């Protein structure tokens, strides 16, 4: 069962805090030194400089164009460097329908990415097949690769894509640096047939 959350307690905006500055992680500071956990520093650096790989196949890709544009501006989150080479990217953003003919290509792109890597599944088609419950469409990319964050919508608004991206940032920031070496992670990849 996937957890379902409803937006029943909308957060009130705080005008004074509307500009977010990145804060230093928890730690001890004294004269001329500052100690903290290595994973926190690494997480801080990683989450504010994610290189996305846009894997845009259809309609959601057009909304991603709007997200990248000046109006919504993904660059505010440290992700203006959109890379098209999987070798250099951290975040695979799958946007749009993935047909069965395309599925091996998505998997190949995922395999080509270096660890640590995250996957954001944008839109109903990538997440579950969406309205296309047909013989030719893959019913969600989580059948072939592990997904970190799903963004609902058909297509999601740019705000929703940004929200999904911020959720990824949260995950990236809090991730333990040992996670990718853990047996649980190996088992997860194993379940997708990835060594």
């Amino acid at each position: 069962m996937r957890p379902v959350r409803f937006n029943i307690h909308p957060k009130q905006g705080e005008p004074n805090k509307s500009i977010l500055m990145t804060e230093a992680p928890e730690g001890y500071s004294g004269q001329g030194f500052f100690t903290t956990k290595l994973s926190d520093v690494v997480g801080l650096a990683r989450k504010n400089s994610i290189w996305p790989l846009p894997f845009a196949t259809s309609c959601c890709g057009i909304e991603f164009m709007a997200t990248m544009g000046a109006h919504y501006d993904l660059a505010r989150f440290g992700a203006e460097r959109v890379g098209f080479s999987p070798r250099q990217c951290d975040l695979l953003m799958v946007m749009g329908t993935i047909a069965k003919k395309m599925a091996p290509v998505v998997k190949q792109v995922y395999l080509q990415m270096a660890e640590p890597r995250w996957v954001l599944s944008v839109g109903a088609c990538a997440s579950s097949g969406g309205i296309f419950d047909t013989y030719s469409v893959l019913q969600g990319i989580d059948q072939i690769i592990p997904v970190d964050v799903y963004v609902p919508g058909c297509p999601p608004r740019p705000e929703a894509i940004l929200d999904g991206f911020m959720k990824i940032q949260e995950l990236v920031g809090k991730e333990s640096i040992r996670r990718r070496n853990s047996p649980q992670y190996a088992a997860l990849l194993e379940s997708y047939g990835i060594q």
Partner: protein
Amino acid sequence: MALTNEIIQQQLTEKFGDQVYNFESPFGLLTFQSPKEMNLKVLQFLYENENLQFTFLTDLCAVHYPDNKGQELAVVYLLHNLRENIRVRYKIFTDIQQPDIFTATKLFEAANWMERETYDFFGVNFIGHPNLKRVLNADEMDYFPLRKEYPLEDQTRIDKDDAMFGRGGSIF
């Protein structure tokens, strides 16, 4: 002299006699049929006759009528005379056991992929086509998905088998 449906029909019957039949004009669009062996002759006549000049192939698709025994598959050509701005729809029917039809690629380059698509969806075998293989579906597919007997849904999915979603059940 403006070209009208009547003139086209008259010209066709003059040339082919009772080999062209079932003339009708639903919504003003002249529709007729011929035996499937005649398709290239009819298309070429429509293309080359200086009064008709149907030189633009707008559309080509197939329709499956499973109850129409011996003539299950219809291949529909939609031709356009751009000078006179008039269209005709031309149909041929074929047996699904032997869906062999002559290709129109020699007349229209546009027919190339349209015929491949028709092959992909319905398995119509276009004789003489330069590269008759699947165009939209994966090459490994072993059936022709738009034929009526095949299901729409992905058969591997198990978590959405609720009849309320239209799976397992049918709204017909």
